[in-house]
Structure formats: C-alpha cells, structure tokens
C-alpha cells in the first residue's frame, strides 16, 4: 500500500469547484494513481467538507462523512466498512454520516461486492485511512497549540492536551487538510476497539422502513423512458425476424428496435456472460404500457447453432465454443451419468488410492446431484442509462463496477473517463449482479434510441434469462479396512458446464490415500456465481457422505470429523491443503457445545450436523428437525462461525440466520428445469422460495472469538446448511437423500 500525494493548490481547487468558502481541502489517493486528480473534481463536494484521504470528510461542526467504497446488497457493508474507518479515526459514531461512494477504483479500491471479500479486503486499508486521518488531526492540533504531537490524545472526535486545551475534529479539519498523509501509522489493538465489535444499526434502516428510493428500480431521471427486452423462448434460440406494427400502435410506445450486444469476435471479459445476443427491445413511456406492447410483438425465432466466443478474462484470451441445441433436464442428467463413467481430469492425488480401494474391506460409493438454481433476487435486474456522444451515465444495482467498465467502454466506444457508473442499493445479489449484461443492454439501448432509458426485466425475464447456479453431480467413494478405519477417499465431480470439485479442501490432508477428479459438459445455458459457488454443492454432497461414512465406521459424526481434522492438523497429508484444520475443528467444537450435541437425537428433535470451509471462513450447523403436518420441518438451528474479528455482531448474526433460511429453502425446494431449452419455472408460483412459516423457530448463532483479521461471512454459513439438512432428514425419515431438491414434490408452491 502506498500513499500518493496529490497536491492541490487551495485556491485552484476552490475555484474549480466553485466553493463559496470553507476550510482547506486536501486530496490524497489511498490507492495509488495519478488519475486521482481528475476523479476528485467529479466528486463535486458540498461546501465546507474537508476531505482527509479518499474516504473521510469532516465538517466544521464535527459531522464526519464516510464514503462506503463497496456497493450494498444486504451484507451490511454500508455500515460495517465505515465502522472500520470510524474505529481508527476515533469518532463518535453518532456523528457519522455514511454515503455510497462513486465508482472510482483509483480512489476507493476494487469496489467489488462478492466472494465474501468486502470486509476482508478493506479491513487494513480502511483502518489505515482512519488512523492516518486521526494522526493528521492530531498534528494540526499540536501545531496550533505549540505542543509535541506525542502529547496529544483523542477520544470520540475530541482532541485534547494535558494543558487543558481541547478541540473538536471539525475545528482542526481545515488545518489538518493541508498536511501530507502520513505513512506507517500504528493501528489500534483489538482490545481497544470501541466501535468495531459493537452491534451497530444499519445506516440505511430508516430509509428502508419508510420506502425511500434506494434501489436501481427506483431510479428516475427527466425524460426517462422504460425499455424491456423480448428474449427467445428457449436457450439455443435466437431472433430471426419480427413484426412490431401492432406493438407500435399501443399507447405510450416510442420505438421497437433490435440490436446486437457483442459483434463477432468481441473480446468479452471474464464476467461478460452472453445469454441472448440479439436484443429485441420495446421502448415506451411507462412500465405497464411497455409490458402490454411487448405481448403484441410477432416474432420468429430460430436455432442458433454453435457459437464461438472470444473470452479475454483472467485466464487470458481464448476461444470458447458454446454448443447449439435445445437442452432438457432429463437429457442433461443422462449426459452427466455418461460423463461420470468416463476418465476425468486428475486434480489431486495423495498416496496410492487405487491399491487402497482394491484392498479395502468395505467400499462405500454414493452419487449426489443438484439442479440449476435461479438467483431470484427480489429486485429484478434493471439498469438506468443515458448515453450520448459525449458521455455515458449509468446507474443501478451492480456488484462489480470495475469489471463492467472496460466492456462498457468498448461496447459504447467511449473512453472510461467519459463513463460514470453510479451504484444503487441492490435488492439482493447472491452473485447474479456480478454479471453486468443487463447494464450493457441498457446502455446500448439508450445509445440506439438516443434517450435516457431504464431497462427493466420482468420477474419472468429475470428467471428465464440465464446465469444460473450450474447443475452438478459428484460421486464419493470411501475405502475402509477390516477395523473400519478410513484408508482412502475419492471424489469425482462434474457439472454443466463446470466442475465443482475443490481438490485441496477437507478431507484432503486428512486421508493417506486421496484422489480428486473433475469433468465438465459444455452447454448453452449460461451460469454464474451463486452464493458460495461450487461450495454450495460440495458441502451438501461431501457432508452428507461423511455422515454416512461415520455411521459405517460406527462413530459419532462430529467425533469422526474431529479425529480427521486432528490428523490433518498434526500430520497433514500432501501439500496445499487450503484450510486451517484447527479452526475447522473449532467451529465443530463450538456447535457441539452450544447445541448440547449427544448424537443424532435430542428429545423430539432429529439432528443433523455439517461443517464447511470456504471463502476463508469456517461454519458449522446443527439442524434440529421434526415432523410437522406430515412434513419434515427444521424447527431449530445452532450455528457456529469463525470469520475472525466480527465487525458488526448483530448484522453478522442476521447474515448467518439468513444464510440458514436460504440454505433450508434451496435444499428443500430449489431447482430450475429445462425442457427443449425452455425454462419451466417462470415466476414464484412455479419456483418455490422458502416462506415465513417454513423458517425455523430459532437460529442460535455463535462466533468463535479471536483477534484474527476478519474474513468472509456472506457465503461461508450457506453451504453447510444443505449437508446438515440432508443429515437431519435421514434421521427423520430413515432415508438418505442424494438428489436436490429434497422435496421435489412440493417444489412449486
């Protein structure tokens, strides 16, 4: 990390910003780049804000404005990230005002919401920003008072000296802003935290409960038109021709246009998923009018055939062939079974698994499957765009503005400095909004119709437009010797279109003879990250398998895992094991103690346990199931999580509870079926989501207390829920469940 000084002459800045007066202004780019200066002016700071580093502005009246760098989709970053700054800045949280930062990767860092990375990535830079600003305020006070800076102290926004002198931050902000940003300022010891680790209310809570326009769908601009896309009825189809005469006669309709998203050979970025490339668009004055006119379109579709895509993502430039054809779930299942029998790519091998399996007294083999899942964010995909020859302004819900900007720049033929991306609050994300296709569409439509437009996906569009959690399968095999000791472990997994296997995860490292293999089947059904990608399937399959294995070994499922983890901690097998066995065992121990685990039964409850490591954190659940009205029902859950320092405990608890509810819902009901390329679930009448009365009565969340730098939380508690539910279901029904969803008969509500 390097602090770049971007020297501004006070007068010239004030002049260029037309500020009436106010204090001195300093700009400092926390993330090094000379471009900081241009971006700074675009911020259009209000009068009298004194900016200290990229994130913090202090008013003369002591109000502190903190910019949140990362877009918010419900994971609480707009509260928790500013808390981290406020902690080191040492201000009274009551005086803090939080605002969503603009898209500015130079000044505000990567700004990627996803991969459970926000708090983890920003923990150190934000602490350093807060500490640097505090130091500058102290220096300003020391200079003013003529005392050594080492004698100056702060407390909750007040600077003091033993002589009795004291000043509010606001009084020193102007002077502080003339100083250079210091380097290497010491950070607080965790024991001294006054804001971090204190339950802190959502800074946008009041706006949410009063219905203020926070979301992309709420965005409005003068002269804005509404656009909707008519996409093909099935994957593998494309637009052939259309007749818009009737649609154009409908009230409020301005235009019907067709356009192409990517020209042939266009270099797509790693997250530029191409679902439907030929767009047929209805543009009109209001949503209802556009929805109705869209029904009047007469459209001919045709099969698309194989498509060559040029990807230029992180893996370098490469050509990818997407196969044509109309896929159905039944044929996909058959194909997966066929591939599962074929030789696959070896991902990891320890010892001599072949011999161990040959010599085994008992081999257990089980195969698990899981379907495509739709993200079903409550706020359907949408984006505002106003593209002119000079400039593009786009605003809406987006997880990764930094990844989207280069592609948008190429598509619009506008340089990045002429593109302004505003990030609204997101009505859910779950990975879906890391794929900015809907933003590109909105921008291209605006460019074509030469007007500000808001593109809206209906719920049906949202559910049938692709970018799903892939379809997966995995076969697990375990070899036991005559004394029921585990001597070999084998996982072979595959999917459409990606292989789910994490080869270096537990139980790799805990078994002498280990083999992991993977394969994949290409498909034209587009997929993307879905809350804990791959892990959300692996945890379900592997943790169910371990439960069955423990039973075969005659061991308690927690004790069996603890023994394996002890082995992995003391004498790990192989290299590159990507988990910390002691922390993994720590969450199992915590959930065992808190739930009063004594095997698979507790009074009326049938109990299932599972644990998993992903996104740098550890989570374990005990799920307590009963039979209610003839149906299995998860009534009570105990959760244990190790994500290091918990920045905002109440919000973190909310997140874990939500992950548990989400996991139960998807395990029981989640699934998207294709027939001849057409998605069979088009809305919530056919795609069942968990509802209030199906959620547990209690979810007790416990965090491992330590001072380790924080790691992810949005994803890690989610995957093991599936395994714990499957294991409780076995105790409840006496049957093992190998295929998700576990309640397919009631999958549509």
């Amino acid at each position, binding site marked *: 990390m390097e602090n770049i000084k971007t020297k501004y002459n006070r007068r010239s800045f004030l002049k260029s910003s037309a500020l009436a007066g106010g204090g001195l202004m300093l700009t400092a780019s926390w993330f090094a780049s000379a471009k900081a200066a241009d971006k700074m002016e675009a911020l259009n700071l209000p009068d009298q804000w004194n900016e200290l580093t990229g994130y913090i502005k202090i008013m003369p009246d002591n109000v502190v404005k903190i910019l949140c760098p990362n877009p918010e989709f419900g994971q609480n970053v707009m509260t928790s990230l500013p808390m981290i700054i406020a902690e080191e800045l040492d201000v009274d949280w009551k005086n803090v005002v939080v605002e969503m930062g603009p898209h500015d990767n130079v000044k505000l860092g990567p700004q990627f919401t996803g991969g459970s990375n926000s708090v983890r990535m920003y923990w150190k830079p934000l602490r350093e920003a807060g500490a640097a600003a505090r130091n500058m305020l102290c220096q300003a006070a020391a200079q003013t008072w003529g005392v050594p800076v080492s004698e100056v102290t702060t407390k909750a926004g007040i600077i003091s000296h033993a002589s009795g002198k004291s000043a509010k931050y606001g009084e020193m902000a102007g002077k502080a802003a003339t100083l250079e940003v210091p380097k290497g300022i010491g950070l607080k010891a965790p024991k001294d935290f006054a804001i971090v680790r204190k339950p802190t209310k959502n800074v946008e809570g009041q706006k*949410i409960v009063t219905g203020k*326009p926070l979301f992309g769908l709420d965005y409005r601009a003068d002269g804005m038109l509404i656009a909707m896309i008519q996409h093909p009825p099935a994957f593998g189809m494309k637009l052939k021709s259309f007749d818009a005469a009737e649609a154009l006669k409908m009230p409020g309709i301005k235009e019907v246009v067709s356009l192409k998203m990517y020209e042939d050979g266009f270099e797509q970025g790693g997250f530029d998923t191409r679902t439907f490339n030929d767009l047929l668009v209805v543009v009109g004055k209001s949503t209802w009018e556009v929805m109705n006119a869209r029904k009047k379109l007469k459209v001919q579709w045709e099969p698309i055939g194989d498509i060559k895509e040029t990807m230029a993502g992180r893996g370098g430039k490469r050509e990818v062939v997407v196969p044509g054809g109309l896929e159905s779930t039944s044929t996909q299942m058959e194909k997966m079974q066929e591939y599962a029998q074929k030789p696959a790519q070896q991902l990891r091998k320890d010892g001599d698994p072949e011999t161990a399996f040959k010599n085994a007294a008992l081999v257990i083999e089980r195969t698990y499957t899981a379907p495509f899942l739709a993200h079903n964010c409550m706020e359907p995909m949408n984006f505002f765009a106003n593209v002119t020859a000079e400039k593009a302004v786009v605003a809406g819900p987006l997880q990764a503005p930094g990844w989207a900007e280069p592609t948008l720049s190429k598509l619009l033929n506008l340089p990045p400095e002429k593109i302004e991306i505003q990030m609204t609050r997101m009505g859910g994300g779950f990975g879906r909004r890391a794929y900015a296709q809907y933003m590109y569409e909105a921008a291209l439509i605006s460019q074509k119709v030469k007007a500000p437009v808001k593109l809206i996906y209906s719920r049906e569009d949202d559910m049938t437009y692709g970018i799903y959690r892939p379809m997966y399968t995995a076969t697990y095999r375990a070899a036991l010797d005559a004394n029921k000791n585990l001597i070999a472990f084998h996982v072979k997994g595959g999917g459409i279109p990606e292989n789910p296997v994490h080869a270096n995860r537990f139980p790799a490292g805990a078994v002498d003879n280990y083999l992991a293999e993977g394969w994949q089947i290409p498909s034209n059904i587009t997929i993307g990250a879905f809350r804990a990608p791959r892990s959300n399937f692996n945890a379900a399959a592997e943790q169910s398998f371990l439960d069955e294995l423990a039973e075969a070994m005659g061991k308690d499922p927690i004790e069996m895992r603890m023994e394996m983890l002890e082995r992995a901690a003391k004498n790990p097998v192989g290299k590159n094991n990507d988990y910390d066995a002691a922390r993994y065992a720590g969450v199992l121990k915590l959930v065992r103690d808190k739930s009063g685990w004594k095997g698979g039964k507790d009074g009326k409850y049938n109990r299932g346990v599972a644990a998993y490591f992903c996104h740098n954190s550890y989570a374990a659940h005990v799920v307590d199931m009963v039979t209610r009205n003839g149906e299995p029902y998860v009534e009570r859950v105990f959760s244990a999580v190790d994500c290091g320092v918990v920045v905002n405990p*109440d919000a973190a608890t909310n997140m874990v509870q939500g992950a548990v509810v989400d996991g139960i819902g998807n395990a029981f009901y989640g699934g998207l079926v294709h027939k001849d390329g057409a998605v069979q679930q088009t809305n919530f009448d056919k795609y069942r989501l968990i*509802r209030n*009365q199906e959620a547990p009565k209690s979810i007790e969340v416990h965090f491992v207390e330590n001072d380790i730098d924080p790691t992810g939380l949005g994803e890690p508690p989610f995957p093991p829920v599936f395994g714990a539910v499957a294991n409780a279901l076995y105790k409840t029904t006496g049957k093992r469940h190998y295929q998700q969803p576990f309640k397919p008969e009631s999958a549509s509500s």
Partner: protein
Amino acid sequence: MAKYNLNINGKARQVDVDPATPMLWVLRDHLDMPGTKYGCGIAQCGACTVHLNGTAVRSCQLPVSAVANEAITTIEGLSEKGDHPVQKAWLEHDVAQCGYCQSGQIMSAASLLKSNPNPSDEDIESAMSGNICRCGTYLRIRDAIKTAAKK
C-alpha cells in the same frame, strides 16, 4: 386512457392512465412513489403490498379502475415521520438485509396488527407467508411484529 381521482395517503391525486393499469405501476411510474416494490407481478411475493381501506392488498393485482375513491395507504404514508410502531420495531430489531421486500413486509405486518392486535406465533407466520424475503429475515420479522404488538 381515463382520468382517475385517487385518495392516496390522505391526499387527492389524479392520473390519466389505461384503466387496467395496476396500482403498483400507477404509484411507481405515474405518481413517483417507488416505496411500493415490484417483485413478481402475480401476487406471489408481497413486495407490492399496500393498504386499501386499511387492509393489506397486492397492488400488482389491483387495477386503478377498481379503486374509485377508496383510501390507499403506501409505505410512504404509513406514518408521517416514519415512526409507526411497526417501522420502529423494524429498526429496533434491525430486520433488513437488502431491504427490498421490507416495505411490503411492513405493510402486511401493520395490516395484521390492525385486525389482530395480539397475534399468536401461528397468526404471524400465516399472515406473513405471502411476503417473500429472499435474504431470509423471517425470524426478525416475527420478533419485530411481536415488539410492535406490545406498543
């Protein structure tokens, strides 16, 4: 197109729209009141919940032509200062994650408490099961309703 005189949050509002237009879109597109959310358009998710004469209804299934001058209350008008007991309880329990569904949840909860001031756990779960929360905040929704019921 036809003109309608509506009574929304105690104020007279006039719109000139297609008679079939659902109140959801009248509110959002024509009256610039985006607190009422679009989630599914088929009365399955509850994000668009408003009150019609004090009772929760799904505004996506309520054509403007059916409203006449009956009183519509939206999240923006549930209380003047955002201090309805349900709104306060929502803040006390810090219910929201993404927050998108919460105006609909709050409108359903306020309607429930109006007709049933002391709901049982079952009453709450049953009344609130028409409102989907994709983030899974159901436990806090129940707790907040119980807190609001005490006030």
